[in-house]
């Protein structure tokens, strides 16, 4: 088995194990930490796919900023062990089979898709350093308008978060 296969399976197994831990953990802080494991494993997979800029953004923004926000809120609200409640019958008997069906269907069609048959070229096809440069050219020329709209979105998100989290009226 070649090295890329080995790396892929190691990080894929890490990601799936982290996602399973997220479901099985009863403390929200454990779920948050396992979600960080998933995100770091996905960043490694992005590196395998030759998307080093996205891998860096994944680590900095997701595993860094967003998860710190989650952990901060968990600590702020003193979220303890999840209460055991009688699960709704709907979730048990309709939700789980439907979720499994969705998983199988997605896996089936993605595995059969034409694009799936192609072999990943890795970072060899386009030079490693050139990739980020090409990405920035694309982002600041062809996608300049969506990029600017994003800044307005973030401004609105800041205002919304401030208004919503403000205590009292």
């Amino acid at each position, binding site marked *: 088995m070649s090295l*890329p296969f080995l790396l*892929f399976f190691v990080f*894929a197994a890490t990601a*799936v194990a982290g*996602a399973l831990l*997220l*479901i099985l953990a009863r403390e*929200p802080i454990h*779920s*948050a930490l396992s*979600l960080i494991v*998933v*995100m770091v494993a996905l960043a490694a*997979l992005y590196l395998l796919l*030759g*998307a080093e800029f*996205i891998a860096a*953004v*994944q680590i900095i*923004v*997701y595993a860094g900023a*967003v998860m710190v*926000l*989650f952990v901060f809120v968990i600590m*702020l*609200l003193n979220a303890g062990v*999840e*209460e055991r409640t009688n699960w*709704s019958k709907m*979730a048990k008997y309709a939700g789980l089979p439907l*979720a499994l069906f*969705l*998983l199988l269907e997605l*896996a089936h069609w*993605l*595995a059969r*898709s034409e694009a*799936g048959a*192609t*072999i*990943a*070229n890795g*970072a*060899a*096809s386009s030079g490693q350093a050139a*990739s980020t440069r*090409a*990405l920035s050219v*694309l*982002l600041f020329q062809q*996608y300049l308008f*969506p990029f600017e709209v*994003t800044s307005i*979105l973030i401004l*609105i*998100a800041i205002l919304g*978060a*401030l208004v*919503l*989290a403000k205590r009292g009226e």
Partner: protein
Amino acid sequence: MNAVPISYYLVLSAILFGLGVVAFVFKRNIITIFMAIELMLNAVNLAFVAFARSFNQLDGLIFVFFVIVVAAAEAAVGLAIVIAIVHNRQTLNIERVNLLKF
């Protein structure tokens, strides 16, 4: 150099998305439900990157960038809503937040 077929990445993406859906349906803690949404967004990002590599187009990576930005904004607003709910109802359990339940 890299001999892993794209379909492997796509199936991994589907598995992660499915686990995110399961977590979304079964978790009772509202913060954990937000984490399940983040997990699903991550799974979709993996599919985007894999397709971008398979078609040798960088546009997919740009969309991943935008998805990450929107997810960050969504997390900020969502967690603010969580804080507001906890201030109003003193619980993180989603089953106790049933004001709109019929």
